[in-house]
């Protein structure tokens, strides 16, 4: 026996996990949660006017809104990454007085109804706003009614998602690797860039996905702050809302387009990023 050729294991099923049976205590609620999230989508799919769908998709206005949505959500996510990851680092790694309050303040745009968020942005960055006045006088920059305004509104609403996800990831990361990097002469910036950031990359990706998705679906703050004009500020959610006023079927089609595009993008991107480290 001890010199027999290695035998193949006769295991039940092709993908049997080493660590045992799946616990129904977890699988049951997980499936329930999934159904809860996906079922309403089924409702939309059933109601969608399939015959006219293709023809509607060909409308240039739809493509324009879609393009604008994707571009502005992506740029907003980049802005959020540039500002939000450092902010998360500050909250997770630096002790300063009032940190608890600051951490709670970061969630403000989440709690604020988006329309009020838009009003608040107007009060600050609008033509007569605190900072907006000065921006216009000094640099000739006006944000409302421009694509830049859409990005600002989306970034404002979506950034908390990024900050909170990344902060959670940073707190969960083993700080001793950062210590090891420090003994190798790495400044805090280098530590952040070459050790901390790569190690919390799954958290950053998760946060960026949340942020991007939230920006893509943003409606209230965008229309309030940036307005709604085809080509410059009318993103898909705005088009959907207006369609809802007159023909709900069209709104469903537009929503499905938005969903399909985002699901395809997320499904093709996330696993590659997430499984990297």
């Amino acid at each position, binding site marked *: 026996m001890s010199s027999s050729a*290695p035998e193949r294991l006769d295991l039940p099923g092709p993908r049997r996990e*080493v660590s045992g049976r799946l616990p129904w205590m977890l699988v049951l609620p997980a499936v329930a949660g999934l159904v809860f999230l996906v079922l309403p989508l089924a409702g939309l799919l059933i109601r969608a006017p399939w015959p006219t769908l293709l023809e509607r998709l060909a409308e240039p206005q739809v493509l324009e809104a879609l393009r604008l949505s994707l571009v502005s959500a992506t740029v907003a996510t980049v802005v959020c990454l540039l500002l939000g990851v450092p902010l998360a680092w500050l909250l997770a790694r630096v002790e300063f007085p009032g940190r608890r309050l600051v951490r709670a303040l970061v969630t403000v745009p989440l709690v604020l109804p988006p329309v009020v968020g838009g009003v608040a942005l107007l009060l600050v960055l609008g033509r007569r706003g605190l900072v907006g006045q000065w921006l216009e006088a000094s640099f000739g920059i006006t944000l409302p009614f421009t694509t830049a305004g859409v990005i600002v509104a989306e970034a404002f609403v979506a950034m908390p998602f990024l900050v909170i996800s990344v902060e959670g990831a940073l707190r969960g990361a083993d700080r001793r690797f950062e210590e090891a990097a420090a003994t190798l002469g790495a400044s805090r910036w280098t530590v952040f860039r070459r050790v901390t950031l790569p190690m919390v990359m799954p958290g950053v990706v998760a946060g960026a996905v949340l942020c991007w998705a939230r920006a893509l679906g943003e409606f209230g703050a965008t229309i309030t702050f940036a307005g709604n004009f085809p080509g410059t500020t009318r993103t898909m959610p705005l088009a959907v809302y207006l369609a809802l006023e007159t023909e709900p079927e069209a709104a469903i089609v537009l929503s499905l387009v938005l969903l399909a595009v985002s699901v395809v993008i997320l499904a093709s991107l996330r696993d590659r990023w997430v499984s990297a480290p």
Partner: protein
Amino acid sequence: MTLRARLVVNRPAFTLDLDLHVAAGEVVALLGPNGAGKTTALRALAGLTRMSGGQISLRGRPLHTLPAESRPIGMVFQDYLLFPHLSALDNVAFGPRCQGVSKAESRRAAAALLERVGLAGRASARPAQLSGGQAQRVALARALAVRPELLLLDEPLAALDAHTRLEVRSRLRRHLADFDGATVLVTHDPLDAMVLADRLIVIEHGAIVQQGAPAEVARRPRTDYVARLVGLNLYRGTADGGRVKVGELLLHTCEQFDGPAFVAFPPAAVALYRSRPDGSPRNLWRATIDGIERHGDNVRVHLDGPVTAFADITPAAVADLDLTPGQRIWASVKATETHAYPA
């Protein structure tokens, strides 16, 4: 036989293929260089690494079809893996709790085990507050707490200081003696292996290269790795009566046989001379000093030449001979200290 296993694990640049038979109450030590596959073998036994083939049976029941949590094993990991959010006591009580023992009873048992490893006073400490060796001892207690039928230990004593090590080693030895299941122990320390194990299995590159009783392995190493482990110079050659030809060199030995052979002699048996000696030693060759290092109370001299060898000499002899690296020198070993055995 309690444990009969054939472990096959294929990895891109590595294949493990071992037969492992451990009797009830027997302690088998797995030795081997870094990367030999010792941890992989233990993980396969525990059900943590999927086997590509083979099978495991414990007391006649197949084990490889069970998930890790249903295998009656206790395991101590190379880097402890204590649960960071639980106190030392709750880490140890974790296993009994999973087996359905009541909370109070589990904690009592855990406290008793912590006491046995000398950590009664640190029961409420979190792993992050324990020193390396303390953490290792808690991990040991945690594995013992599940009263396993098969105990797997991945370098259980590596992080312990000499003092504690001695104590924990002899306690572990006593526990293993009481223990009627099989034990597989991975260690780098030949002393641990000699003291704790009934049998040694030496693996290199995923395959067994030598096994046997500790004394047997120590006397008759069959690979360079084992020879260094037990502190012998080892060569492979061809025996022809009382002489073994190793490369260019002809070594005289006490044993008489023909055919492929190993020859071994201890570094302490090597004598060094500045000029060619006219004495009784039959085995004499010219060597170059490759390096000199302190070794315990003695000095270990690395020799290059027709064979590479270590020689252990006293510091006084180093001074007398005025040895320096690069120097040419004569080395000799008495035939009575040179042992040959079939390869």
